[in-house]
């Protein structure tokens, strides 16, 4: 059984290419293609949106980690999550990348570094001929007990996400938001508090946060998050007592004064009708904007994001020391503008196929 613990050197040997003596340009090392970010020297893609021969995957969210590639290199947790989602045969072969360890693919040295986004998430550094590009994938800097914290990596070119790339997005401290949820539970003990949260990462982070402020009661979870939450618990992440939200016998007071965590799509849906006078909360960075909360009929917006806010984005760009920044999926224009104002070369990298992740 060639499982994820057995590195398959054959898979990532890559083609040797003779390099001319000219100075390497960043776009020779990595450039966007319809499939995703491509590295010609190592003949691999990062987070490709279509099936490819070799894929390096930053993290398990569906728009980054897709099934059907021939070979996949990712962290152990990301490979596990892909298997949970797509079944054991999501790729022909899989190889584990450990945080911080270098790995040669052809003439290219690649390494994975914590991104602080969700369990197993990584930035991928790609280096050749003295030029280093870091593809951040999705990342954040706020503390999160459910994953390894982000580590800045010095580089020449930094490829940053920009989901919350506008100065209006400054996420408050997570504990403050958790306390607001706790306060609402005390104020409306007869109402079921349905918390919409993306099922990989955000849901477990909400639960872990509530535990960290002393909320010890059982938390009910929607079926869509059961397996992934169990996996998190198996990785030693403390989520306390979780119970299925849907049971055979329904009562009129089901969920009263309790937290029910569910995918955002169920907010305001028929699914919520089984609970006592449901109060909809939504844990998302978008909740910073009142109109977003209003449109979705959210009564208790919780500003909690797994993506970097404006201050984190700009601080991270500085920390990487990058002289050039490529901005992807999100509000590219504002971050490009900020880089210009700070004397850093920047351009939007128009990659297709990445979504907002309902974050």
């Amino acid at each position, binding site marked *: 059984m060639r499982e994820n613990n057995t590195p398959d050197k054959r898979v990532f040997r890559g083609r040797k290419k003779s390099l001319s003596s000219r100075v390497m340009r960043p776009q020779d090392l990595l450039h966007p293609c319809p499939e995703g970010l491509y590295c010609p020297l190592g003949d691999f893609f990062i987070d490709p949106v279509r099936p490819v021969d070799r894929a390096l995957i930053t993290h398990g969210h569906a728009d980054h980690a897709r099934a059907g590639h021939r070979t996949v290199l990712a962290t152990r947790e990301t490979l596990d999550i892909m298997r949970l989602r797509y079944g054991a045969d999501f790729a022909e072969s899989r190889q584990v990348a450990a945080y911080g360890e270098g790995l040669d693919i052809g003439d290219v040295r690649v390494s994975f570094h914590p991104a602080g986004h969700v369990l197993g998430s990584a930035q991928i550094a790609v280096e050749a001929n003295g030029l280093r590009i870091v593809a951040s994938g999705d990342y954040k800097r706020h503390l999160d007990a459910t994953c390894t914290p982000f580590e800045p990596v010095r580089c020449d070119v930094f490829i940053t996400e920009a989901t919350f790339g*506008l*100065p*209006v*997005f*400054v996420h*408050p401290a997570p504990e403050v938001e958790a306390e*607001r949820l706790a306060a609402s539970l005390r*104020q*409306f003990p007869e109402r079921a508090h349905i918390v919409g949260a993306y099922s990989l990462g955000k849901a477990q982070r909400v639960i872990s946060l509530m535990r960290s402020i002393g909320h010890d009661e059982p938390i009910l979870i929607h079926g869509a998050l059961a397996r992934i939450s169990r996996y998190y618990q198996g990785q030693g992440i403390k989520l306390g007592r979780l119970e299925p939200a849907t049971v055979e016998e329904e009562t009129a007071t089901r969920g009263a004064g309790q937290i029910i965590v569910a995918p955002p799509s169920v907010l*305001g*849906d*028929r*699914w*919520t*009708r089984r609970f006592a*006078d*449901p109060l*909809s909360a939504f844990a998302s960075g978008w909740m*910073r*904007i*009142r*109109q977003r*909360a*209003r*449109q979705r*009929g*959210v*009564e*208790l*917006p919780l500003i909690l994001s797994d993506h970097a806010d404006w201050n984190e984005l700009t601080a991270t760009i500085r920390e990487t020391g990058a002289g050039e920044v490529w901005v992807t999926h999100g*509000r590219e*224009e*504002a971050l490009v*503008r*900020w880089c210009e*104002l700070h004397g850093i070369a920047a351009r939007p990298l128009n990659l297709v196929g990445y979504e907002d992740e309902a974050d």
Partner: protein
Amino acid sequence: MRRFADILDRLVLTPARNGKLRLLADYFRSVPDPDRGYALAALTGGLDFPAVKPAMLRALVTERMDEVLFAYSYDYVGDLAETISLVWPAPDDASAEAPALGEVVNTLSRVSRSDAPAVIADLLDRLDPSARFALIKLATGGLRIGVSARLAKQALAAMGGKDVGEIEELWHGLEAPYEALFAWLEGRAGKPQSAAQGQFRPVMLAHPVGEGDLEKLDPADYAAEWKWDGIRVQAVCEGGVRRLYSRTGDEISGAFPDLMETLSGQLALDGELLVGDPRLRTGSFSDLQQRLNRKTVSKKMLADYPVFMRCYDLLQRGEQDMRPRPFAERRALLEDLLPTLDPQRFDLSPLVDFGDWAELEHKRSNPPHPIIEGVMLKRCDAAYLPGRPKGPWFKWKRDPFTVDAVLMYAQRGHGKRSSYYSDYTFGVWAGPEDDLQLVPVGKAYFGFTDEELKLIDKYVRDNTVERFGPVRSVRAEPGHGLVLEVAFEGLNRSTRHKSGIAMRFPRIARLRWDKPAAEADHIEALTALLDA
């Protein structure tokens, strides 16, 4: 300021009235003086800071950040106050203590226009984004959070275990930050003395006549009068103070100088505000609407739509509080008083003679004037009591109009109903028989039972043609559609609606699953009503 910002944010997003009441009562209970009192003033529209203008705020923020980044942000958020609150750069030295609401209100009320920019910037520096938003909305008078002054007073009543009528009666004698009021509500002091002149007296309201109610009553005990289709008002004149109040105690004097100028002496009257000249003609509710919800009123408006008050009751005359006296006595005194008032501005709502309920029913069904919407029954020996006591007063309305309309759009409800399509836009047919088109004529979100709601919700989901946001358009053609029997109180002309009409108080009377959509009413049935 933090707590004030929190409650504003919660109130905006809490649709249920009870939820709002609980948030407010908890806030008043847990926040100390004087902050809670200033919050109360802000919620009831009692604060005004003319020195702060939106353009100034915009200039302040663009001095502090790149204009292009601000423009991207404003474009995304859409609301200037919210954008500024979010992008305002926090000072490096964030140690400055956040100001309390009381401090903010005091500062804003004293600041001059020239000092305002520096003062506002200093406040913004010391606040977090939510509190900055609250500050800007407070300072620019844009607090629109779905809380009426009445709801705030009800929360106070709940907090202190008092009747809301008592609070309304006191209200106009009190001033922010309302420390005496809170002391009384918390049982720490007696009821504040209502020293001010021209106060509102909580109004007496009637119950609708229910099934079998009349059989139990002796017609001889009751007087009947016409119920006019205007707005119920109270006019008070005391010690030179003249005020006109809506039935919830909101002061509306400013919009009706033509009426108020003519009042003198010391009295309080209960009646109906109408348009026209009582000696010549009584205008429709549509006419009256021209005069409602205005802060000021033009000369032309005063000439084209003069108002008058048709009096129902007398609450105060000289030093005498008439409210404890029986209706028959108040009515006789009112009849005595009326000749002393300007006949162009005040008249008496006539009593309706009747021997038995059948006779009154006949008169109710055939009112002598189109602006009559039913009859009121008042027990001759009843005092004037605040609120809606059961028994002394009844309203017996004209039967509502009904129309058979076709469901066109359904929108998700709020709160408890947020998982249901519970707000319905319906239309009637227009155009030639071979090319019928539906024109929307109204929107209703009540009148049906919970069971019926489930059925309509399912129908909407099964017959969706298009979805846009929370709204679904529903299949509605002559050969396929859901017919709703809609009851309503009347029609107004409207330039805002494509159909040219606006319905008053539409509600779903019945679901006509049995009726083919093609047999729903035509627009002519409604326009005829408008012309009548």
